[in-house]
């Protein structure tokens, strides 16, 4: 069966509307979940003695936004902090061997 172009477009639109998660404002629960994940990654990085200053400041920005009731911003900042912390963990792990490439021999 061959679909007509307007029908295919309509189908695509319906599918998109149906499948895409409805955009909604983040709430405190979203923030708490995002912050907990970021904090856990940050603690892991600190435990490896490889914390980044930007992780700490972005976590603080997330908390500040949440304290002010702006959970959209708070969740975005917490997710960014988690990504930064994970990048620092990756750095610490890869540098366990990679530092040797820089050594003067």
């Amino acid at each position, binding site marked *: 069966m061959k679909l007509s172009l307007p029908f295919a477009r309509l189908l695509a639109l319906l599918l998109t509307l149906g499948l895409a998660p409805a955009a909604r404002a983040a709430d405190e629960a979203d923030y708490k979940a995002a912050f907990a994940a970021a904090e856990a990654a940050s603690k892991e990085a*600190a435990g490896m*003695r*490889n*914390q*980044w*200053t*930007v992780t*700490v400041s972005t976590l603080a920005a997330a908390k500040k936004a949440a304290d002010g009731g702006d959970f959209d911003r708070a969740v975005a900042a917490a997710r960014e902090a988690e990504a*930064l912390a994970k*990048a*620092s963990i990756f*750095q610490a792990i890869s*540098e366990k061997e*990679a*530092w*040797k490439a*820089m*050594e*003067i*021999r």
Partner: protein
Amino acid sequence: MKARTSILLGSLSAALVALALTSPRVVAADKVDPVADAKAFQNFFFQKFPTVKHEDFVNGPYSMNEDMKRQWQEKEEFPPYEFALDAGKEMFATPFKNGKTYADCFPNGGIGIRQNYPYFDEKEGKVVTLELALNRCREANGEAPYSYVKDEMASLTAYMAFTSRGKPMDIKIPDDPRALAAFENGKRYFYTRRGQLNFSCASCHVQSPGERIRAEILAPALGILNAMPIYRSEWSGMGTTSRRFVTCNSQTRAVPLEPQADEYRDVEYFLSYVANGLPISGPGARP
């Protein structure tokens, strides 16, 4: 069939020969050899900057740039660290509440000994820096320790460095696996990338000495601690070796360790050892 067997045997013997040739090198690369490391380190800088006099590396960016060097030489007539030096001299001679002085804590009364720090304390099994030894001296005599990053500590180390000016750095690594491990740990710290900028100490001070980073000219790693402590115009004041490590970390967007953390003590041991033979020039002045 016969040809096939010969090829197989030939390949096998070639592989064995290759293995035999490479194995010792792998072992050698993993062995901690401070003497070889220091030689390679110094040669790297001597070859990279063939016109710089060896003893001039301790003058940091001034050894890399003639204009800056002339400005610095003029500034040395009234050096910005002079106040710290005078304060350090007075503090050094002032007795603690119990009547003892810093001189009682150090060999040769603390005069002309800067070039022997840091040293490896076999009893403690760790590296002891001059800053650490000064605070331990204070605590042993019932005084509160100073901040490791500035003011009084910088003044005291400035005076002690001044009494050692011109003496060649003379760091010893005893035949103790813990001392070798500390040296290796310091080396690892020096070359390890950290912070969001993904920089190691070597990124600036091995790969790019003499190059500009914003308005500043990067100092070579060779002899970089011989000038400590330093007056930095950027800081508008004096800073110790601890302060230098802490700010370097921050500049790469890495959270600094606590002053006198094992890693900092070890990297100081490594950097000082590879500068053996180069003169103490501290206290220094930097832009």
